[in-house]
Structures are given as structure tokens and as C-alpha cells.
């Protein structure tokens, strides 16, 4: 009697997991340098316990795969999963499919933080153990959202999701204005800031993975735990309240969890657009709008999408790299229009 039996959902889970593994292997195998692509899976098998085969991959080539490509693939998976999951969650609690994870000013705040970090003497901070750019971006993103939330809930009885979104627009404008001012005063870092804004996984290290993993894990687990009640919110605030939900509390927790994860993702990857909108949309088109399945599958799909989007960026314009934000937007914008068209046709 209940729609979409568990078996059907299970198939999607399996498909999502397989997609991430397959695309991840491609991400490890493909690149402008290193071993021939088909030797990489053999090398991975060779590293398994109790297994020994001749993969033909030298230690130097393995180092390139493991120290350069692997953290990049893992970071792309984490960032893609987080942005998609955060996007799906925001869209669920605001009941607006066009909301993205940057809604409440995370992007602008992180951009401002990164700009300030670039503008401060980079030579002086080059010896720091922790790169100040992701740290500043994270702090900037969190401050911006805290500001948005403070403003958005400061107006007594009129507080609502709309007020919060409008506050986000205001904070975004403010942070962008300050960022522009800082950039104008520091012309020499424009290129670096611009490169960061377009998104970057080029310099990903295992250290970056370790840095963001706890935040993303906490955020993802929290959001997934709330996926059933986010589904209840599809009937609107009033009816959800009448069904026994503390709507405001759920919305706050979900927004904060999504923001924490997004801030961490943005801090190490820069601003990668479209993932948070198009991936949940694509998932909804495939399996319907139930947030109970959209949230976890968006996570898988986002991970696979961003790993895949990172591959052409490193191959097509070798030896230089195309920023991943350019790739996601290049494919994302037409895909987004395609989805809108599909929706129109369906309706």
C-alpha cells in the first residue's frame, strides 16, 4: 500500500553507492600525468591486505595517485555531498526548490573572509601550520549566517522564513560590498581571490580532508536524522505545527547544521555553484520529492557529480586547470534550464 516499496528505494541506494565508487575510481585513474588509467585499479587492489599483483605502477606514480589525486577525489566527494545535502535540506525547510546552500550569506561571508586573508600579507602567514584562507572563509561564513539569523529573528512577531531569507539577501549584499572595497584597496590579490571564488580542489590535501570531515560528518548526520520531519514540513508551517512539530526549532537546527557543513565545504573548496540546486532537483525528477529519500540520495549524487566535474577541469586545459566552479556552472546552467523545461512539460 505504501508508495515506493523498500526494495525500490534500496535499488536507488545501491545505484548511488556504485556511482560514487565508479566515478571515484575514474577520478583516481584520470589525469594529465601519472600511470596509465587502467593500472590504477590494479594498484589499489595490490594495496589490499593479503593481495599481491603486479600493477606496473611505480612508487612515484603511486605517490601521485595517493597524495595528489586521492585527497582531491575524497574532498570533491565530501564537498559535493555536503553542498547537495545542504541544498536539499534548505529547500525542504523553506519549501522552496530554488533555495541554495548559500542562501543565508555563507558564500558572501566566506568570500569576504577569504579576501581578507588574501589581502593580509600572505608571505607573513605562509609559515603558519594552518592555511589562514580556509579558516578565514569558515569564520566569515559562520559570522555572516549568525548575522543573518540575528537580523532575521530580531523583529518580534513578524519573524518568519521569508524574513530570514530577506536578511540573508541583505547580509550577502553587505558582505559583497565590503569584499569589493577590500579588493579595490588590494588590487594585487584580485586574481587569487577570483580563482578562489570560482572554486578550487587543485591544492587539496589529506590535511584538508581531515579539517572538514568532522564538520561535514556532524552536519550530514544531523540533517539525515531530520529527514522524516523535514518531509512533514511539506504541508506548510501551520499544518506541521498542528501535526505536533516544533517547526521553528526544526528549521533552526536544520539551517544551522546545513550552514556548518556548507561553511566547512566552502572553506576548502571555494564557491562552487549550482551543485546545491541542480543535484537535489535531478534527484527529485528521478525519484519524487519525498525528503526521506531525496536527502540521502542527493548526498550520493552530489558526491558523484562533483568528482566527475573535477575530471575535465584537470584534463581539458592541461597543464593549467579550469576551476571546478566554471565546470559545474558550464554544465549546471544548461542542465538547470533543462530541468525547468522538464518540469513545465510534466505539469
Amino acid at each position, binding site marked *: 500500500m505504501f508508495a515506493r516499496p523498500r526494495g525500490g528505494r534500496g535499488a536507488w541506494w545501491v545505484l548511488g553507492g556504485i556511482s560514487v565508487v565508479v566515478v571515484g575510481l575514474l577520478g583516481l585513474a584520470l589525469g594529465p600525468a601519472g600511470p596509465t588509467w587502467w593500472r590504477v585499479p590494479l594498484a589499489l587492489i595490490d594495496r589490499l591486505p593479503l593481495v599481491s599483483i603486479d600493477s606496473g605502477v611505480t612508487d612515484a606514480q603511486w605517490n601521485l595517485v595517493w597524495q595528489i589525486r586521492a585527497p582531491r577525489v575524497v574532498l570533491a566527494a565530501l564537498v559535493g555531498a555536503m553542498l547537495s545535502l545542504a541544498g536539499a535540506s534548505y529547500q525542504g525547510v523553506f519549501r522552496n526548490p530554488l533555495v541554495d546552500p548559500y542562501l543565508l550569506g555563507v558564500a558572501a561571508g566566506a568570500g569576504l573572509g577569504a579576501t581578507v586573508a588574501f589581502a593580509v600579507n600572505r608571505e607573513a602567514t605562509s609559515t603558519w601550520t594552518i592555511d589562514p584562507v580556509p579558516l578565514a572563509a569558515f569564520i566569515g561564513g559562520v559570522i555572516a549566517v549568525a548575522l543573518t539569523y540575528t537580523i532575521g529573528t530580531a523583529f518580534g512577531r513578524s519573524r518568519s522564513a521569508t524574513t530570514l531569507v530577506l536578511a540573508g539577501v541583505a547580509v550577502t549584499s553587505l558582505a559583497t560590498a565590503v569584499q569589493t572595497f577590500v579588493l579595490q584597496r588590494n588590487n594585487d590579490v584580485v586574481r587569487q581571490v577570483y580563482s578562489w571564488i570560482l572554486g578550487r580542489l587543485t591544492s587539496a590535501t589529506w590535511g584538508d580532508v581531515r579539517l572538514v570531515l568532522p564538520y561535514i560528518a556532524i552536519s550530514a548526520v544531523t540533517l539525515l536524522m531530520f529527514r522524516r520531519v523535514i*518531509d512533514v514540513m511539506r504541508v506548510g508551517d501551520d*499544518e506541521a505545527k498542528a*501535526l*505536533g512539530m516544533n517547526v521553528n526549532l526544526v528549521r533552526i537546527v536544520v539551517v544551522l547544521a546545513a550552514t556548518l557543513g556548507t561553511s566547512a565545504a566552502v572553506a576548502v573548496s571555494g564557491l562552487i555553484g549550482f551543485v546545491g540546486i541542480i543535484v537535489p532537483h535531478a534527484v527529485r525528477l528521478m525519484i519524487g*520529492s519525498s525528503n526521506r529519500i531525496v536527502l540521502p540520495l542527493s548526498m550520493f549524487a552530489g558526491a558523484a557529480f562533483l568528482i566527475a566535474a573535477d575530471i575535465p577541469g584537470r584534463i581539458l586545459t592541461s597543464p593549467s586547470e579550469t576551476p571546478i566552479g566554471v565546470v559545474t556552472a558550464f554544465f549546471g546552467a544548461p542542465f538547470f534550464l533543462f530541468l525547468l523545461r522538464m518540469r513545465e512539460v510534466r505539469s
Partner: protein
Amino acid sequence: MNHLTLRNVRVEYGGCAVVSNVDETLAAGEWLCLIGPNGAGKSSLLRAIAGLVESSGEVQLGGHILGTLSSRQLARQVAFVPQEPVLPDDMPVSDYVMLGRNPHISTFGRESARDRQVVADLIGELSLSVYARRPLGTLSGGERQRVVIARALAQEAPVLLLDEPTSALDLGHQQHALELVDQLRHSRNLIVVSAMHDLTLAGLYSDRLLLLHQGVGVARGTAREVLRSETLAEFYGVSARVIHEDDGTVVVVPQRSSGES
């Protein structure tokens, strides 16, 4: 036996009272219909009982003050069907009815076998089995109304609040919906409080009427006691003929203003 008691219930919006000093007591299985012109406070009173707006005074059910309950506890006592429920177009009927089990499922929990059984039973009882897998967007107005009522019943609350339950339905579906509510309140011993504009239907199905005017209860009692030409003229500002049928039915027929052809 559970009684729903309203004592001095008052609702204010921006310092302006929209419901004032309403007192009522309803026994289990009783149906009270709130009537009154637009803006009389009918919906606000229902929302106050459901805990969706701030109110003063006291709403008690079986000796428990509803205002002291958590939203989850309250939803186990009071089910509310709004005038224009939000029905996500692509949500299957069975999933939608399952939303009514939310008060019985912990925030991070999943539906139990009992939750699934309750929903399956309701879908069968309300003759929704053929629609169970269909998306809500494909249902007609009458089918949607049954589904919304099924969701409310899934809460297994002893009080059912209905805000204009028939406003979007044709005559046949209005009758079907109200017959269904009437049958369910008897079989489940529900306390029903509804807001309705159709005075004839209100009198036909409910046990008692409460006429609200500017938030104040100005007349109460059976249809025969409340639905009177002079009362309607005073509070609705209309000329209406009230016909008392032999079987006890009270029919309200609006009359055209004199001088018009």
C-alpha cells in the same frame, strides 16, 4: 468521559480582540458548529483550540489544560483540518495519511507496524484503497477532502477541528464529506468543532450552533434556536427566510432585496 471545555477564550491580533470570552463545553461525540459572517472569529477560535495562535483563557480536555501540553502531546488530543490544506501534488495518498501519525513518532524515529496498520485501516475505512498509491495532485476535490480527513483521523485525537470543510466542494461532495464526519464522530466518539458558512448544512449535521459576531458568541443552541430570520438579519445583515421542516430540518433561504425583479 472526555469533555472539551472552553473558558473565557480570547484571541488578539495586534492588540485587537478577534475572539472574546468564548465559553463552551462539549461532550464526547458532540458536534458544535461555529457560524457567523466573515471575520467573526470562527477560524481564529479553531486555531486557538489547536494551539496555532496565542490565546488567553483556558481550553481543557478531560481535565487537562491543552495550553500546557507540548505540540506533540497537543496533536495527539486535537486534530485540525484547515480551510485550504496544503497537499503536495506528488505525494502519494498513503504517505500523506501517514503524516497524521507524526505525533506518535519520535523526531528521529520511524513508523512502527502499528502506525502502518492505523493508516491502512483508515484508508480502507474511508474507501481510499484505490487511491492509496496515487499522487495527491491527481485527486478530485472530494477525494482530496477525504484524504485530508483521513490524515486528521490518523492522529487518533479525540477532538477534530474542521475549518470550512466543504467550502471547495460541490453539493454532492459537501454532503458526502459531512456524512463521513458525522459517521466517524459517532463511531469514534469524536468531539467535532467546525466552522461553516452554509447555515442549512451546519444546522443539519451539528448538534449545536454557536453564532459568533465580532469574536463574541451572540447566540447558541440548536439550529431551531439560533437560525432565526431576525438573528440572521441582525448579524449577517441579510434578509433570509428560515423554513422549519416537519422532520426538524431548518432551511435557510436568502431572499432578494425588495424592489429587485
